[in-house]
């Protein structure tokens, strides 16, 4: 391995401009993927925040008894989809309405009877904020005889989840397209780097070097180029994030694991692209 490492480093030293060019091409290709990841992550975060507001409200009949409320509260709280069940009494409902709708203050002041029902506000756990879970919990809550109505903003939830599906499909399609283009650019960059050294491959084959021995320094060089490109892409993405954060709008930084995955992907692409390119040259002698 020491020979492979020495040769890989020596190759970069002998043609530093070519090595820098290859790493820059890899870096720019992955930078586009990084920007896309930043956008996708923030879109996902925004949707997640909206989703966190998804809740099921079960309106209770006025003649409901405390024991019945406690029973429903306990049973619904134990559902795996449910994060929290909050009982809102008629009085609390009125106070909330007064607070949330100050324009209707006079209307509320003139009331002699509180028309608002008590309710159970059911919040779902992250991961269960899906249309299926919302509908399932609504059906369960609605099955209690003392529940008059169940609301979860059907139309709103359906639109939200439709938007999520569209976003997920767009992210998958565009992400794949960007990744394929990045892989193609990385492949081309390394192909150029290896083409410049095809004479070495030729001589190695000529004098009887084993294929594995020939490949090793090139694979290592591909990994090093991919790694350098990945780090460059990470830096460029971070600089773009800071600039957007400072001058445009509030953004969330992508998870560290994504950055590490991106750098590892760069190295992996580098190894694969080098391997394929070397194989083509190995067939020539």
């Amino acid at each position, binding site marked *: 391995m020491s020979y492979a490492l020495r040769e890989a480093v020596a190759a970069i030293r002998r043609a530093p401009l070519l090595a820098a060019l290859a790493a820059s091409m890899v870096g720019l290709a992955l930078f586009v993927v990084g920007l896309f990841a930043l956008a996708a992550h923030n879109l996902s975060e925004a949707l997640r925040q909206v989703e966190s507001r998804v809740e099921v409200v079960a309106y209770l009949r006025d003649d409901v008894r405390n024991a019945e409320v406690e029973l429903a509260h306990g049973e619904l709280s134990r559902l795996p989809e449910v994060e929290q069940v909050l009982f809102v009494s008629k009085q609390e409902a009125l106070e909330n309405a007064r607070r949330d709708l100050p324009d209707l203050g006079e209307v509320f002041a003139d009331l002699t009877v509180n028309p608002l029902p008590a309710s159970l506000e059911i919040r779902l756990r992250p991961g269960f904020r899906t249309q299926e879970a919302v509908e399932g919990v609504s059906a369960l809550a609605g099955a209690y005889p003392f529940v008059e109505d169940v609301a979860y903003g059907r139309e709103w939830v359906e639109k939200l989840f439709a938007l999520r599906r569209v976003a997920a499909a767009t992210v998958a399609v565009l992400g794949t397209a960007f990744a394929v283009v990045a892989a193609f650019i990385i492949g081309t960059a390394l192909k150029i780097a290896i083409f410049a050294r095809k*004479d070495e491959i030729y*001589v190695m084959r000529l004098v*009887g070097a084993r294929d594995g021995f020939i490949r090793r320094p090139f694979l290592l060089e591909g990994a090093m180029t991919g790694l350098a490109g990945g780090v460059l892409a990470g830096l460029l993405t971070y600089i773009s994030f800071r600039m957007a954060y400072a001058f445009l709008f509030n953004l969330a930084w992508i998870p560290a694991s994504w950055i590490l995955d991106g750098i590892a992907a760069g190295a992996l692409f580098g190894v694969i692209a080098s391997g394929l390119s070397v194989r083509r040259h190995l067939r020539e002698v």
Partner: protein
Amino acid sequence: MIHLDNVTKEYSRRGAALKDVSFHIRKGEFAFITGHSGSGKSTTLKLIHMSERPTRGEVRVSGYTSERTSAREVWKVRRRVGYVFQDFRLLPGRTAIENVAFALEVTGTPAQVVRTKAQRLLGQVGLAAKAGAMVHELSGGEQQRVAIARALANDPVVLLADEPTGNLDERATRGVMELFRDINAMGMAVLMATHDLGLVRRYTQARVLELDQGSLVYDSATAPPPAGTEATV
């Protein structure tokens, strides 16, 4: 040591480059392959080196046969066969000793041996003093000597040379040919392709194989020279 048995090599576009060629090169033999351009000289050397495979027939080199030696195992043949070209094919941007050492390193020679052996090989070809020179600083004859040193790196049993003097002047040619003779005198077979009949004439002890349009038309080891054939001199 090298056997070609009824070897035919056909290319899809060019047609037959060799037609039913058979000969045997013994250990320590010095032989010329002559013929016009396109007669099949280079193809013959490539078949022995196993960088080409015969369409029909069989090539055997030091126990390895073209039929049974897979692409993965071909390195074993290459280490038994040194190869020298007209255009040297040295690695630019490296010194003479680095070019020779490269051949040793990539074939797994222990690191502590590489430098001393490369230096010794350069001494053998008369270039010890120029070990540190970049290859582009060397003359054509010197570059060919480096290429020969590289070809000898893995102690082959035969040295193949494809028009090795084609790019050299008279004096450099003489030097390279003397080197081949010395190498041959140490017991290594030398098989040299050339169209320079003047050169062939000067080495009367060497065996001559003449190819014409892919066919072996003359072998000095088995037949008297055919009338009117220049290679008979």
